[in-house]
């Protein structure tokens, strides 16, 4: 981008403030809810908020960069266990800064290890999706058998609440209700950070990669490194979600790595609309409250319902349910329906008749 005039510059700042209106509304809504709800409601919404960080990480990858990480729960579990083990074995009774820092660090490291071969060697995009799924599954297995470190299939219990005390300043969390404002603050901050990221030059590069990777590479951009950075940011977000979820739930269990969390995250993003950031957060809160009503009936039934909704959304509403209400998305759909992603498709749909004999 060459010379940005002052007017364009202000327009961008104005645009960013306008785009941030969602964060303001979300914050106001959460503040009101925090005043009205009972402790259990606060717990449910707090866990929805924490897990919506995972949805943000998926939205960044899938919605903005077109990268499919089918095992986001790997980062949830990693963050949770890192927090739990650090707080037990290294900094027991002390502030939880190190636990959070290590969780985020490990999230980034795992993301880079998993993503590096996929993006540097320029494999098919499906390979990354499959490997991320496999990584989550194998971490779940490994956690379940490593009794010494992780408590095995029993998991770890009695995970202490976060403690942000500084010398001379007591910020130790004592009740689970205090989690709600923390989760609200973190999610709004993460939302604003993602918003800023996606509206920046970097964000436009991501969108360009999503739409036509070859062209971006031809223009001289380092596609692999850009995707690697997104994966690393997503890994950090996912691990942060885990590090917050473990103390909120009070336990860390191998099921945190499980496919149910991954599917749930994808449903939230698909229903909220990928590439909207705020959509997945709202979907997380709404569906978590709904789940709380339905889950008593049948956990399997609820998961089936999620999977069915997910399939229907993918098939019929590529922009998510939120996309129905988004004028821009509707325009995009019409535009896209004229020139499909592969020009070959119409040829394949109407083949010539087979020869006789």
């Amino acid at each position, binding site marked *: 981008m060459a010379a940005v005039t002052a007017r364009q510059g202000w327009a961008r700042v104005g645009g960013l403030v306008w785009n941030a209106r969602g964060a303001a509304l979300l914050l106001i809504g959460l503040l009101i809810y925090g005043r009205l709800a009972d402790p259990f409601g606060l717990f449910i919404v707090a866990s929805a908020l924490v897990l919506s960080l995972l949805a943000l990480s998926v939205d960044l990858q899938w919605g903005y960069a*077109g990268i*499919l990480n*089918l095992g986001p729960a790997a980062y949830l579990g990693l963050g949770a266990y890192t927090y739990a083990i650090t707080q037990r074995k290294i900094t027991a009774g002390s502030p939880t800064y190190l636990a959070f820092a290590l969780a985020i660090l490990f999230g980034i490291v795992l993301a880079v290890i*998993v993503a*590096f*071969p*996929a993006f*540097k*060697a*320029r*494999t098919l*995009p*499906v*390979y990354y*999706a*499959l*490997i991320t*799924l*496999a*990584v989550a*599954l*194998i971490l779940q*297995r*490994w956690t379940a*058998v490593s009794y010494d470190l992780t408590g095995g299939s029993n998991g770890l219990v009695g995970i202490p609440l976060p403690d942000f005390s500084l010398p001379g300043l007591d910020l130790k969390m004592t009740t689970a209700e205090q989690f709600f404002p923390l989760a609200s603050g973190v999610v709004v901050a993460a939302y604003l950070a993602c918003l800023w990221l996606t509206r920046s030059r970097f964000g436009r590069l991501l969108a360009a990669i999503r739409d036509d990777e070859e062209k971006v590479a031809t223009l001289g951009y380092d596609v692999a490194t850009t995707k690697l950075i997104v994966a690393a940011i997503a890994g950090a977000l996912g691990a942060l979600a885990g590090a917050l979820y473990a103390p909120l739930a009070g336990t860390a269990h191998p099921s945190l790595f499980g*496919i149910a969390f991954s*599917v749930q995250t*994808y449903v939230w993003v*698909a229903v909220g609309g990928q590439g909207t950031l705020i959509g997945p957060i709202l979907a997380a809160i709404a569906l978590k409250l709904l789940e709380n009503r339905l889950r008593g009936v*049948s956990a*399997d*039934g609820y*998961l*089936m319902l*999620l*999977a*069915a909704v*997910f*399939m229907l959304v*993918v*098939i019929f509403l*590529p922009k998510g349910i939120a996309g129905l209400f988004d004028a821009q998305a509707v325009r995009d759909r019409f535009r896209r329906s004229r020139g*499909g*992603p*592969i020009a*070959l*498709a119409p*040829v*394949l*749909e109407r*083949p*010539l*008749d*087979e*020869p006789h004999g």
Partner: protein
Amino acid sequence: MGHLAMMFAAVNTGLLLKQLFNATSAVSLLALVAIGLFIIFGMMKVINMAHGELFMLGAYTMWWLLARGINFWLNLLAAALVVGLFGVIVERLIVQRLYVRGDLSTLLATFGLSILLQRGVAIAFGDRPQFVTSPFTGGPTLLGNTYPTYQIIATVLAFAVIAAVVVLFLKTDFGLRARATIVNPAMAAALAVNTVRMNALSFALGSALAGFAGALAAPLVSVVPAMGLDWVIRAFLVVIVAGAGSIWAAAGGAAIVGGWEAGFTAIYDATYAQITVLAIVWALVLLRPRGLFSGTGRRWRR
């Protein structure tokens, strides 16, 4: 002393032979699952995440029919047929709609389908393992180890079906059209190959193979709703390590993935076997991003 050494040698040879047999058996089943995935992936460039659940449905079909007193060998065919038909429905309702989009929607939709099927079966039959009794008990003994008759027959049968699929692809008119569609769909369509029907048929064939493999494996594994996940991941590792370059790649990839896993499990531990196989496959991706046996895709032409 010499006597003891000889005994040791005998035990080790026997054990080695037994492990080799187990590995071969695992590889044959894996190759059968992977080859279906290969055909679908090669043909439509579509990843069917529900492939493992098709395997699971095959195993459950076997269990359900066997519980109703129907002959084991008939059930093998029935499982292939039922799951193959199911594949036709999936292709019609989901895959055909999505694959023209040319993005990852098919993968996502079939991912949803896999969870739907897995939990649906869990609701219908419960999460507890179902046992499928093998039509044979016992088996020949060699160097102190018993080789179950059914495992021998299942291995031979799996290899026979793989051979039949290879012959189908390399020697028949259908195979010629299928390979033409894989190598260049637009050119195949221009040369009067009905590529839409080819896609549907290959999807049905791939599904039937998964169903057959599931039914065949049912007496050897525990039949649970989540059983497919392991197999689909293994089969995908085969695709990744081998590349979708030819029909032979499936067998080669299965030998690497299945062989390593079985060997490492025998020596050390199943979980670490999976971790190491994942690490190896992922490291190989750096060296050969398109797979070890990918070539240039020309091999489909022979």
